[in-house]
């Protein structure tokens, strides 16, 4: 349970990070808060040649409200966002999900971008980002690009990020007037990875429901406002996610959570509109 050897590079600015990734490629790993990466290193599931610490990059330590989105830099810790004034009004779904994300003792160090980069299929932040239709800002020495959340998460701990790219920020769309938001999850212990997580956004056009912990990445479904057809739609959706049995829950239990918890979260989001 000790990491294998690696070099450690404390980058002073973004250019140093991009240069290191350009030189080292897939042999380098970004470390921010380390709350996803350190367990992987301790268990030697990851054995990078060099760690690039981005926490001292001043331009990535910012939370920027652009009006339409809250843009959170790579070096912003979860606890900082949790305490961000007005978060519940600006991005209510993020405010609702953050207390479920790990524990007080991990949110104190972990970053939002780090959790998104790790892309655990059960994690809360990728789920919220997909539910809201947020985006990931990637940068390499060659280019900068913005990838929609739904295109970013491609598989179990697999993302659209290239080896020479760093996530410099993620953007959460801010609350729209007349929209309702809800989040719920079932886990064995508060703060553990969810068995199933649900996030819903309700507005005049309908409901967008996103589910984590079942498929190998968070997946969204659009439902009409009228709840008459929800049960059938949720049943088809639950089967389409191809749930698997594991130590924590059976596939059948997961499908049932999608049906029941999914419905409850959609109703809650609808009620939040009022």
């Amino acid at each position, binding site marked *: 349970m000790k*990491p294998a*050897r690696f070099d450690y590079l404390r980058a002073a600015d973004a250019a140093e990070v991009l240069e290191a990734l350009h030189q080292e490629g897939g042999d380098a790993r970004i470390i921010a808060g380390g709350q996803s990466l*350190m367990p992987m290193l301790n268990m030697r599931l990851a054995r990078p040649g060099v760690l690039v610490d981005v926490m001292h990059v001043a331009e990535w330590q910012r939370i920027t409200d652009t009006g339409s989105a809250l843009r959170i830099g790579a070096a912003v810790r979860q606890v900082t966002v949790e305490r961000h004034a007005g978060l519940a009004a600006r991005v209510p779904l993020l405010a609702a999900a953050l207390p479920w994300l790990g524990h007080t*003792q991990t949110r104190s160090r972990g970053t939002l971008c780090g959790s998104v980069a790790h892309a655990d299929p059960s994690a809360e932040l990728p789920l919220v980002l997909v539910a809201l239709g947020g985006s990931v800002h990637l940068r390499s020495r060659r280019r900068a690009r913005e990838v929609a959340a739904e295109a970013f998460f491609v598989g179990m701990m697999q993302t659209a990020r290239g080896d020479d790219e760093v996530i410099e920020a993620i953007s959460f769309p801010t609350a729209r007037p007349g929209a309702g938001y809800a989040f719920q999850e079932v886990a064995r*212990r508060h703060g553990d990875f969810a068995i199933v997580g649900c996030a819903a956004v309700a507005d005049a056009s309908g409901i967008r429901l996103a589910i984590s912990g079942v498929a190998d990445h968070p997946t969204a479904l659009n439902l009409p406002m009228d709840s008459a057809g929800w049960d059938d739609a949720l049943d088809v959706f639950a089967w389409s996610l191809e749930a698997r049995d594991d130590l924590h829950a059976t596939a059948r239990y997961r499908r049932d959570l999608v049906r029941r918890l999914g419905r409850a979260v959609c109703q809650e989001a609808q009620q939040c509109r009022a």
Partner: protein
Amino acid sequence: MPRLTATDRHRVLITLNGRAVEGDAEPRLLLSDFLRHTLGATGTHVGCEHGVCGACTVQIDGEPARACLTLAVQVDGADIRTVEGLAPAPDRLSVLQECFREFFGLQCGFCTPGILMSLDAFLRQRPDASELELREMLSGHLCRCTGYVPILRAALAAQQRLNASTGAV
């Protein structure tokens, strides 16, 4: 840009319980091992080494954090507090520690240093925390002896006494 090479040891300076200390660490050395093996501060316990059990929780710049999920080189220059820093004097316990004794908040004591460091920070930051919030915060720790009820009792008693003494809430 400082690149710390994998096979060499590098000087790390921290403030440990109010005192400036230094030691040498390979980049891969965990803060938990740096505290225990390099600096000899063995009050911090090591359980699972992947961030689940909470035994190794210390305060980094005032925030509770897992020492096993932190590299020593990451906290160069930081202010670290461990269980050794809680008692106001060698023959006196802190209010929180005293409550743990009074309410039987520990049995074997393995998880206790981590829980104390979490509670010490949390009761300072959130003197008005509800019982539910205390429970949720404690969910970041595993205790296999007490069943948590005495821990929660000790935490609530400490909260009451600390608030009474500071006039908060």
